[in-house]
């Protein structure tokens, strides 16, 4: 019984390595470089650990069997040779580690030439991610938040900066960390080789809600990505029914939503908070903190400080009918 438990536990532990936010489940070349280096270091260290423990056990049992310690000239010489040999092997292993991690760093730093890389700018804010797809044709550029859609198999070059403090972009399944620094531009790249949803986090302490500053990278087949891109380029759909149009008036009105948020195709042009033009098409709200459902959206609009204390969205004191109309309008922004 107990013997069966061990492999079962190992399987459970290995299953935990899979997932949308795991450096042990690489989905692209950058993450694979890091995974290979990590695996090499881990396996080598494990082998060394097992050998050292075996040698220790051997020495202990060997010493117990002998009546008196061996202090002869020959015994001293043997001990000296063993210690020298072990130090030599240790140095050799460390040297191999050095060379392997250097080669990994070299390979990691090379941005692939050619092809048609997708250029995406990421701006860090306390506590959300602004994502801008820039195109040489200005009308083909678009802005969204907390969600990066990418086509599978195409290199994505991220140009990143920060609006306030230092943040760090980390999607473990795709690449290593890269800092976002105010007043300075950093560049990194990744490529997703398998379609999927990969979760990322801020990896540099950036204030009160650092822990709730997540994002999603959604890798999809190129055709699907192109459809998503075209849909995002469109202006917001005007409300079709009276409830939604009441909601639009609430949004444009006295609660001041428009001071911070943009809805393209309307008068709302605030640049402080995330662009809401296609809010309903996103998977999450508040930087991958809560699911994008009507209930959560209502809670977030009324009392963001209850969900994410310290976030820069103020609480809104709305009448129930105003709130319901607003939610209908926001959910119509597909």
């Amino acid at each position: 019984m107990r013997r069966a438990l061990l492999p079962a536990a190992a399987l459970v532990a290995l299953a935990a390595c899979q997932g949308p936010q795991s450096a042990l489940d690489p989905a692209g070349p950058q993450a694979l470089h890091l995974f290979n280096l990590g695996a090499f270091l881990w396996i080598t260290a494990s082998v060394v650990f097992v050998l050292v423990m075996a040698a220790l056990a051997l020495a202990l049992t060997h010493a117990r069997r002998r009546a008196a310690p061996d202090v002869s000239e020959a015994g001293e010489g043997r001990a000296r040779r063993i210690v020298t040999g072990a130090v030599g092997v240790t140095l050799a292993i460390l040297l191999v580690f050095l060379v392997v991690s250097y080669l990994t760093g070299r390979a990691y730093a090379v941005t692939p030439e050619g092809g048609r890389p997708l250029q995406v700018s990421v701006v860090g804010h306390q506590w959300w991610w602004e994502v801008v797809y820039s195109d040489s044709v200005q009308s083909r550029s678009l802005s969204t938040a907390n969600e990066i859609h990418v086509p599978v198999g195409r290199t994505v070059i991220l140009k990143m900066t920060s609006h306030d403090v230092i943040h760090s972009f980390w999607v473990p399944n795709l690449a290593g960390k890269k800092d976002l620094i105010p007043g300075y531009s950093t560049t990194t790249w990744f490529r997703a080789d398998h379609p999927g949803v990969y979760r990322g986090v801020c990896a540099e302490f950036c204030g009160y809600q650092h822990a709730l500053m997540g994002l999603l990278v959604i890798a999809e087949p190129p055709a699907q990505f192109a459809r998503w891109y075209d849909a995002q380029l469109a202006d917001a759909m005007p409300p079709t029914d009276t409830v939604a149009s009441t909601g639009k008036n609430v949004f444009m009105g006295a609660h001041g939503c428009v001071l911070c948020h943009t809805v393209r195709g309307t008068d709302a042009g605030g640049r402080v908070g995330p662009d809401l033009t296609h809010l309903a098409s996103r998977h999450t709200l508040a930087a991958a903190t809560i699911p994008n459902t009507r209930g959560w959206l209502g809670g977030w609009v009324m009392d963001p400080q209850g969900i994410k204390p310290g976030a820069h969205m103020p609480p809104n004191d709305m009448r129930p009918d105003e709130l319901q109309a607003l939610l209908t309008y926001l959910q119509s922004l597909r």
Partner: protein
Amino acid sequence: MRTWVPRGARLAAGVMMVALAVSACEREQRRFRETPPSATPGGEVETSGGFVPGPPLPDVKAVTPYLDNAYAVSEGKSLYLQMNCVGCHFHGGGGIGPPLMDDRWIYGSQPENIYQSIEEGRPNGMPAWGSRLSSDQMWKLTAYVMSMSGQVKKDVAPGRDDHMQGKKQEQSTEVRPPRNYGGQPPSTVFP
């Protein structure tokens, strides 16, 4: 020669020093869901309700926790940029709008006066923010505007930043008491 101190006293002194050091960790409390002053009964800010400045408001400190709260002041500073106050007042030096970092106040230097200027707007271009910002946000802005002229405590005022600012908090050598502009400014005299 060393004075003998009983062991108990030394222990007590040590414990007290650690307690003092630990108490320094919490500088202030960040209250994210503050009930804004104007929402509390009795703390209502009186506003003149017209375009004309009207008589000066009574010299009472508004019941505001924001003036003593560094977090609130720095939030006000973010709002000052985000709401584009810099567009007219620049970083305190003024230009299109009057400067905010000197000791001359057209409509009064009290927090209530500043709050009122933000909420209701003023003639010649200052927009009214009352219908857009929450009173909580306007109090934070008020606190930051007051910090520009050195009217909040130094440990509360935000640190220096990269923008050009004539007199930075930590560099000011004297505190000049604010004085109200004598008489009515020309801009408010109607024909």
